[in-house]
Every structure is written in structure tokens, then in C-alpha cells.
């Protein structure tokens, strides 16, 4: 065996150690699973073995879960089968894990799991098939959980059956639905594990338990077994199920089949014995794996994001380098956030502002956020102090002499930015990179102020910095691969996801999200009920409705951009409902958005918001009568197509080059319906041909927002997908 060793001690207890060679973490692959089968057979068949303890030889992981990149391979052969044949074949393949885990727990000898480190997903499921679980109390990185649903998968190794049988349906739903990960103490309190002990004593204690319990049986294999908290038709159990359906529908709008199927696995599985339950789980797992949502979510949210997080966008020939110290210029909300996340990642930060009070105020933001973490017991005071000490407020530009990178985050003012660029470059090392956190000004223009434009790059953070995971790196005309590489070093170090995009008005994310907001305005002008617009957008998978989003970013901001565009390009440039509505909102009604308590919504003191009744005025031909109001399905198309088409244009123009960056950027940047796998996966799943046909229809009725680029037409003709044409990812199977 490659991944496991077995050592039998004098008492006949086999210590099974999981330690995959050449891998930083233990993961569950088909090969590993096969070996678990062998291990199980050995435990069962070898008379010298009285019982077993399973542990890991790695400090960072007992087992981090299934190798999702391998999951696609099972589709290879199935592609050409009929639907029924494919289901049957996939089921057979996917059920193997249940066969193996089930034989482990029914091998007739006691088996304990000594969980020394992280055990997630399939990793936790291995331990659930053991009779006893003891976890290290002194490993702060030890987390237990079944987070499969977060990437569109369900716990298919018996997790949906064993966990609720252990801790009850309510607690099991709580862990499985939102991918909650818990530490050893919490796991003990819930009953997921039986005992905790210092890591050094784990194996010894596990062995002691095995020795003392020669007749161990799983609770669900015992005659008097009752489901904790009751099954679906137990009076108390029923409450759980009646509550979980609306709660999950509220959160998922029915768009996420993983959560939906987990519910059925538990509901149906708890009404039968464990073996039937495992078959039921596997049928839903098989169904789920054939859904586009799962494939797309695994690809974008797990595999592609992971690749980008490891600087997958680094230009060829460039190497990873250290980022030890940076300067952040401008200690406003953005600058303070950037300083905070950088210090959190261990970077020394000089926080520079025009006066020391301003710089100190920026540092106070970090102090406040750190205090929150301490009070929530997410961090101890000593660590918080150490992080805060890394931020040095200053007005002195000479601190930039030894920084690796400067991030400028001052007002969007070309002259100011130019002045600061010059001041900083006076002190910066030749190899240090200057990053401008602009969201609207083209980078190539700003780089004109630089004496080293090749070392000048846009680093576009989203607000609030400490919560938004995406960073756009904007490549100007003269930006070098070296500068891109260094910016990637920085963004990956602060644990955000970087995408590399070309210099264009709005870059990538803001350009696409504008189309979203514009459709909100367009629909309003067409006489669609505002509530229907907002609800349909959320039902389509967007985190907030377009009108609500415009309120959040501030209406007068949009208004200013329109006025600037009008000044730059003349009155013809601002046609269309969006401009008219925003101008009226600001000039006629003084409604600026959430910031002045009135926008598309009225905001009351208690935090409630209600759509402003005056919005009906913006319906050009009056609000449509009820029976002419569009369906949510139509509105979903309007909303998602407009954004996807803009993303396709960005691909056509080369603004974004890698579909993974377009997809991950769309999900992390502006919350584009995550179940789709992102803007381009959305088009690929519909199929370019069908997408273009529908877009052409929409273009006829609803305007140029739906005009597809030639690229998409060509792809439709050739039957291509974005991932097929532009994909760099390793093809699954």
C-alpha cells in the first residue's frame, strides 16, 4: 500500500497510519479509497488483529476530503451512455465508498479514529464509519465538518446518514447546509466525537478504548437505536423538517440542488435502516453529480479559485517572491482596509496620509476589527497586538525606501494620484512595484506620471476590503510581467483571489455589474413592478436586487458618472432609462440612496427598507397591468444574459483572457449567481448556440444590452464552449 501503513502492537491492535507520499495533505482519491478497502479486509481477516486505530501521519490533515479534481473522471466513460445507463453506472461507481465504509464499521472488530488534524468531507466520513472518535485538543487548526454543499456536492460517503443518526437531524443540517466547520470542543459537545486528548496521547487513548471494547457496534446497528431528536414523523423531529425546508428555500431560492438533495437524503434516510439509507444517499449523490450546478460549482468555486489563489495567473517565466513590507498611501476606508488585511497576513505596513491624525484613524480601523475578533474568541489578544504593531501610521514618504510594494488608495483624482506617484517613486527601490487602487481611472493614463511605468499596475480592491475576496490586477500598456507577478505575490499573500485584466473603462467586474444595474432601470422604465424586479433578481441567484444595489453604491455616484460622461462625450452619450432615472432621482427628488435614507427604497430608523412608492413614475407607459407583468423566468434571463453578454464582450476584447478568471471574478466580485459557476459557465451550460438565439430575441425587444459579440456567434457556429476554446485548465478525463 502506498498511502497506509499498518503496525500491529503486542495487544494485537493495528495502528493504521494514513500518510500519502508526495502530497502536502491527505485527500480521498479512488486510489486511497481502494487502500482503505484493503485495510478493512486486513483488519477483518487477520486473526492477529483484535482491533484498529486509524490516524494520520501528517500534522496538517487527518484527511482534507475528497479529491474533487478526480470526480470528473467518472464521467469520462459515462458521457456516451443513455441517461438511465449513465445513472446506473455512476451509482455503481459512487456506491463503492459506502461498501467500503460499511464493511469497516461491520468488520466485527473495534475501530477507533485518532483524529490528530483537519478532517473534512470524506475525511470526516471515514471517521464516522469508525466506532470511536477521539480528536486532538491541542491542534488549533483541527477542524471537522461536511462542507461539500459549499461547492455543490453532498456528503456521499454516508455523511448524510451517519451524522444525523449521531447528533440528530437539526444539528446535522446545521453542519451540512452551510459548510460549517467546528473545532474539537464543539464536536465533543455536539456528539460528533467521543473524546478529546492532547495530540501526543491520542493513539494511546484510542488503543485503550479499542482494548476495552472488543464488541463495539455502531449505534445504528444496535437493536434499541433511536434517532436523537426523532425522525421526520416523531413529534419533535417533524419540527426540524418543517423548519428546514423554508429556511433553506429562503437562503437558496431553490437554486442549489446540493442543499435540496441533502434534505431528502436525511428525510428519506432516517425512515429506514442504515443500509437502505446509504442507498438513498447514493441515489441523490448520483443525481446531483449529473446536475450542471455541481459540475460548474466544483470547477469555479473549488478548482479554479484554488488555482487562482495559488497565483495561477502568474505570467510564464516569473517566479514567486516575498512581500515583507508595503506602504499604503491614503488611510481612508479603502486604505485602512488594505492595511488591515496586509498586517493580518504578516506584512509590515506603513500607512501614509497627509496628516498623522488621518493615518492614525486608518490604523484605528484595524484596531476595531481586531478587537471584534478577540471578543468573538477568534483570536487571542497577543496575536491581535502583534498584528496591530505591524501598522505604522506616518506622513513621511521616506519610509518607502525599503518597501516591496506601494498601494495608493487616495481619491479618484488624476492630478492627486500623479503627484503621489512621483513622491513615492522618489524613495522607492527600483524593483518595488507601484499599485494604484483605482476603480474608474484607466491605468495607462495614471502610469504616465510614473518614471517606471513598467512597474506600475492597478490593484483594484472591492469594498469593504476585509470582506470582499476578489482583487482585479489591471495591466496598463507598459505594465511588465514582473509587476504582475509581484502584485500576484501580494494579493495571494493577503489570501485574496487575484484576476488579471486589461485596462478598460470599468475594468471587468464593474463593467459587468453596470449592465446588471442598468437592466433594473430598464425594467422599471418598461413598467415592471419594482418588487417583481428585485425578487426575480434574487430568485435568479443575485445577492441583492439591482435597485437595492444602486442604493448601496449611492445614486449620486452614478449621477456624477453620468454628468462626467455628458461633459466628456456630449449629451447623446447619456441616452437610455438609467441616465434619466438617476438624474431624476438626484435632481428632482433628492434621493441619493441608502446614505441619505432614501433611494429606490425608503430606509427607516429600525433598519427596515421598503420600495419607494414613487418608482411607478419611471414606467414610461405606465406600470403594466398584472396579467401583462413578465414571469420571473423571463426576468431571470434578462438579468443574467445582460451580465453574461458583457463578460463575453470582455473575453472578445481580451480584457479577461482566462475563463476561470472571468467566472471566479464574477462570483467573488459581484456575486453573479454562484450556482451557475459564473458568467461564462452560464453561457457554456446553456450552449453558445441556444444562448445566441435567445440573446438575439432579447436584443430585438430589449435593446443593445443583448447584442452578442462576434466571438459568441463564431462559437455558436463551431459548437464551442469558452472552456473548450480558451480553457487552460487541465481537462478532467
Amino acid at each position, binding site marked *: 500500500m502506498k498511502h497506509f501503513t499498518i503496525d500491529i502492537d503486542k495487544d494485537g491492535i493495528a495502528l493504521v497510519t494514513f500518510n500519502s507520499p508526495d502530497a502536502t495533505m491527505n485527500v480521498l482519491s479512488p486510489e486511497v479509497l481502494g487502500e482503505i478497502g484493503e485495510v478493512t479486509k486486513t483488519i477483518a481477516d487477520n486473526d492477529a488483529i483484535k482491533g484498529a486505530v486509524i490516524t494520520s501521519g501528517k500534522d496538517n490533515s487527518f484527511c482534507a476530503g475528497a479529491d474533487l479534481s478526480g470526480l470528473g473522471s467518472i464521467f469520462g466513460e459515462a458521457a456516451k451512455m443513455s441517461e438511465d445507463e449513465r445513472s446506473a453506472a455512476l451509482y455503481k461507481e459512487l456506491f463503492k465508498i459506502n461498501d467500503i465504509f460499511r464493511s469497516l464499521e461491520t468488520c466485527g472488530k473495534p475501530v477507533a479514529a485518532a483524529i490528530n488534524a483537519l478532517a473534512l468531507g470524506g475525511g470526516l466520513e471515514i471517521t464516522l464509519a469508525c466506532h470511536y472518535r477521539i480528536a486532538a485538543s491541542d491542534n488549533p487548526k483541527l477542524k471537522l465538518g461536511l462542507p461539500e454543499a459549499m461547492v455543490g456536492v453532498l456528503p456521499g460517503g454516508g455523511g448524510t446518514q451517519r451524522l444525523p443518526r449521531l447528533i440528530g437531524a437539526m444539528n446535522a443540517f446545521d453542519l451540512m447546509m452551510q459548510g460549517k466547520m467546528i473545532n474539537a470542543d464543539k464536536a465533543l459537545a455536539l456528539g460528533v466525537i467521543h473524546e478529546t486528548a492532547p495530540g501526543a496521547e491520542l493513539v494511546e487513548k484510542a488503543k485503550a478504548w479499542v482494548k476495552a471494547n472488543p464488541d463495539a457496534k455502531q449505534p445504528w446497528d444496535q437493536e434499541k437505536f433511536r434517532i436523537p431528536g426523532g425522525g*421526520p*414523523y416523531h*413529534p419533535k423531529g*417533524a419540527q426540524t*423538517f*418543517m*423548519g*428546514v*425546508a*423554508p*429556511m*433553506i*428555500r*429562503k*437562503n437558496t*431560492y*431553490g437554486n442549489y440542488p446540493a442543499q*435540496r438533495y441533502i*434534505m*431528502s437524503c436525511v*428525510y428519506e434516510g432516517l425512515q429506514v435502516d442504515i443500509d437502505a439509507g446509504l442507498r438513498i444517499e447514493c441515489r441523490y449523490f448520483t443525481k446531483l453529480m449529473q446536475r450542471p450546478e455541481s459540475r460548474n460549482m466544483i470547477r469555479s468555486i473549488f478548482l479554479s479559485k484554488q488555482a487562482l489563489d495559488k497565483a495561477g495567473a502568474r505570467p510564464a517565466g516569473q517566479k514567486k517572491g516575498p512581500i515583507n513590507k508595503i506602504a499604503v498611501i491614503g488611510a481612508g476606508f479603502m486604505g485602512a482596509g488594505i492595511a488591515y488585511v496586509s498586517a493580518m497576513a504578516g506584512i509590515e505596513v506603513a500607512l501614509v496620509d497627509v496628516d498623522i491624525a488621518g493615518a492614525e484613524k486608518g490604523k484605528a480601523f484595524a484596531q476595531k476589527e481586531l478587537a471584534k475578533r478577540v471578543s468573538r474568541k477568534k483570536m487571542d489578544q497577543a496575536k491581535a497586538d502583534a498584528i496591530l504593531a505591524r501598522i505604522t501610521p506616518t506622513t513621511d514618504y521616506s519610509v518607502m525606501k525599503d518597501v516591496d510594494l506601494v498601494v495608493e488608495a487616495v481619491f479618484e483624482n488624476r492630478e492627486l494620484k500623479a503627484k503621489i506617484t512621483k513622491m513615492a517613486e522618489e524613495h522607492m527601490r527600483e524593483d518595488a512595484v507601484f499599485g494604484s487602487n483605482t476603480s474608474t481611472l484607466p491605468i495607462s493614463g495614471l502610469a504616465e506620471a510614473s518614471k517606471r511605468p513598467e512597474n506600475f499596475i492597478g490593484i483594484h480592491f472591492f469594498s469593504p476590503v476585509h470582506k470582499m475576496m476578489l482583487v482585479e490586477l489591471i495591466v496598463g500598456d507598459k505594465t511588465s510581467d514582473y509587476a504582475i507577478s509581484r502584485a500576484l505575490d501580494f494579493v495571494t499573500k493577503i489570501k485574496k483571489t487575484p484576476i488579471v485584466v486589461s485596462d478598460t473603462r470599468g475594468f471587468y467586474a464593474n463593467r459587468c455589474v453596470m449592465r446588471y444595474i442598468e437592466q433594473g432601470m430598464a425594467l422599471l422604465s418598461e413598467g415592471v*413592478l*419594482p*418588487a*417583481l424586479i*428585485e*425578487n*426575480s433578481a434574487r*430568485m435568479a441567484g443575485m445577492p441583492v436586487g439591482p435597485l437595492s444595489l444602486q442604493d448601496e453604491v449611492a445614486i449620486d455616484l452614478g449621477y456624477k458618472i453620468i454628468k462626467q460622461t455628458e461633459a466628456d462625450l456630449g449629451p447623446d452619450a447619456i441616452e437610455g432609462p438609467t441616465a434619466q432615472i438617476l438624474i431624476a432621482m438626484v435632481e428632482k427628488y433628492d434621493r441619493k440612496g441608502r446614505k441619505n435614507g432614501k433611494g429606490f427604497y425608503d430606509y427607516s430608523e429600525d433598519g427596515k427598507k*421598503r*420600495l419607494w412608492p414613487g418608482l411607478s413614475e419611471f414606467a414610461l407607459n405606465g406600470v403594466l397591468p*398584472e396579467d401583462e*407583468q413578465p414571469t*420571473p423566468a423571463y426576468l431571470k434571463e434578462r438579468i443574467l444574459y445582460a451580465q453574461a453578454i458583457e463578460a463575453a464582450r470582455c473575453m472578445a476584447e481580451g480584457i479577461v483572457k482566462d475563463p476561470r478568471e472571468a467566472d471566479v471574478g464574477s462570483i467573488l466580485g459581484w456575486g453573479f449567481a454562484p450556482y451557475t459557476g459564473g458568467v461564462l459557465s452560464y453561457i457554456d451550460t446553456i450552449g453558445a448556440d441556444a444562448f445566441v438565439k435567445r440573446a438575439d430575441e432579447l436584443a430585438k425587444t430589449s435593446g443593445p444590452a443583448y447584442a452578442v459579440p462576434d466571438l459568441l456567434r463564431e462559437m455558436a457556429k463551431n459548437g464551442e464552449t469558452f472552456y473548450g476554446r480558451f480553457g487552460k485548465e487541465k481537462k478532467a478525463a
Partner: protein
Amino acid sequence: MTEAYIYDAIRTPRGKKKNGSLHEITALQLATQQLEAVRDRNGLDTTLVDDVILGCVTPVGEEGANIARSAVINANYAESTAGFQINRFCASALEACNLGAAKVICGEADFVVAGGVEAMSRVPMGSDGGAMGVDPEIAFDHNIVPQGVSADLIATKYGFSRDDVDAYAVESQKRAAKAWKEGRFKNSVVPVKDQLGLTILDHDEHMRPGTDMQSLGGLNSAFQALSEFIGLDNVAIQKYPEVEYINFVHTGGNSSGIVDGASAVLIGSKEAGEKAGLKPRAKFRSMASIGSEPTIMLTGPIAVTEKALKKAGMEVGDIDLFELNEAFASVVLRHMQAFDIDPAIMNVNGGAIAMGHPLGATGAMILGTVLDELERTGKQTGLATLCVGGGMGTATIIERV
């Protein structure tokens, strides 16, 4: 074709849930006493009764195992009289009447006793389980919400304010009080006897005649807290996305009361009546049941009224009196709005808001109520209907003979 006639229609008084008089009386007794009364009031030879159909919405525990058959045996009906229990939720007893009439019309039966029984203080609502709110295939995939949320959705979508529904409830209490005071129910309400055979209840004890806008206004929404906690309002809105938020207007005061009760209607052919020496009081003109959108759930009376009218070849204007079960005030308000019905001919003697709604028994109770009122006022045609869980509606049009 044979026609079906109503020869008698009776009900028990309704006992309230909390400290109610009927809490110590079994469901079997409630049903048995109704069957006995139908027989004894009419001097009926029960060998003429082919079947007994009882509605019951929670047929578990003492209401399980086909309570109709138990009641037939316990009431000492002829050995040849059969019995079965049905469940069309709130319309069960009206459906039982319609089924009984259908059996007569098609010639299967000569006499049928149809009605229902529900001892809600003894067998709690929902204690029969059921997939509808529990299995995600139905609850999640079809946006099923509790009826109260549906009622509030109706109020929101069709614009009924808290004042509107409260005003309706005040009127229901007033009408019920007046009806009792004037003895309008006296011929049909059969007092319930205790274990000694003594009367334990002879009036509807859920009523609160002094109810006014002020007392109702102080009540909290019955459904808002739970709804917002687990997202039921959002689930409903996902089906009705034109609604921004649910206006929670229903309270315990403007929704039907939870009570114990039973009902029975004697239905037979003309020939059977003649043979038994009984005089028919009314004739079934048409009957209907329909399915409707299950999330808003309680708008079924509209479609089923249209269907029943069509089957009878009638128009709304041909109906002299309406009885629509007051499950929730908004249900009745929406019905009157949809057909432009004069409130003066709708639920003229009050309804379930004042007197209570013993789920499986109510349908036959309101059929009896509309018949009594037609007779009292000398009017001709009445329509009884109920909204039904899961999105259904059942209706019956009767005509005095």
C-alpha cells in the same frame, strides 16, 4: 336521473379548546350522538341507511381506524349500515355530503348520513403527520407554507388591511351573537350529553360577543414571528414575487377558532323519503371540488364557486345566501371582492371566527346553517363553500323544495 334531497341537518354546539366543555367527551361520542339524533329526530329505520360518511381531518388516535364505522356500530344503527371516513381537510364534511348526494343520485344508496367529527382539543391539529409540510419534495419544491401565511398573503396581495380583517371579525361576532339570541340555531343544534346522559354543552362556547376593534387591535399577529424566523414569508414571496413583503394581519381574533364538534346531514332520494315518511327540505342543485394554487392555498372557493354555478347553470346573482367558511377573514373578504357579493348575504349568522371551526365537521355545519337561514327568510337558493388546505375548494348549491 335521481335527485338528492336533504331531510335533516344537525350539529353539536362547538366546545372551545382551552378548558372547553367537550374536552372530556370522546370524538366517538360526538359522532355517535349526532347519528343517534338523526335517527331519533326523524324516527328513521336505519335499515334504510346504506352508508355513513364522516369527514375527519386528523384520523389518528381515537379518531383513527375509520371513526365513521365505529360511530355507526356505537349508535346501534342497523348492522347493514356501512361507514367510512374521508379527509378533504377543512371541506371534509361538505365533501361527505356531496359524496352522499352522489351515491343517492347514481342510485347506489337510498339514504346516507353525511357529516363529520373533529375533537380538536383531544386530537391536536397536525398530529396525523403527513408529507405536505415535512417531505422536501412537496414542502420545498412547491413552496408550501402554513395556512396563516397564505391568509396573510391573500390580505397583502388583494389589499386588505388589519382594520379590514378586524372589522370583518367584529361583524362575525355580532352576527353570531344575534343569531343565538334570536334562537336561529335552536332547531339544528343538538346538545352534547355527558357520561351520565346529562347535557354538558348546549351552545357555542368559543364566541366573544363583546369583541370590538379595540380589543382585536391589541392582538399580535399569529404568524409573523415564526414566519420571519424560518423564512416562510420569503417562501411565499418566491411564488408571488410581485409582493414586496407580507402584511401580517391575521391574529387569533380574526381567524377561525379551534374547537370540538360534530355534524350530520340526512340525505336521500325522493322515494326513500316517501318510504320513510319524511319531507325533503332542500335539493342538491350542484356540487364541485377543485384544486387551486397551493401556496396561496385559500383562494379555492372562487374557482369552485364558478364551477358549481356553471354546473347548476346559474350566475352569482342567482344565489340568495352564501356560506363561506371563515377560516380567516381575508378568505371571505377576497371572495366577496372577486364576485362583488353584498356582505348582507354572506355568512349572515356569523361563522367560524365567532363560533369555531371543528375542521372535519364544519362543512356540513355551514350547509345546515344556510338551509336554516333560507327557510327562516323564505329564500330559495344557497351556496356553501370552504377553502381547503393544499389549495382546494369544495362547494354545494342547494335549493329549497
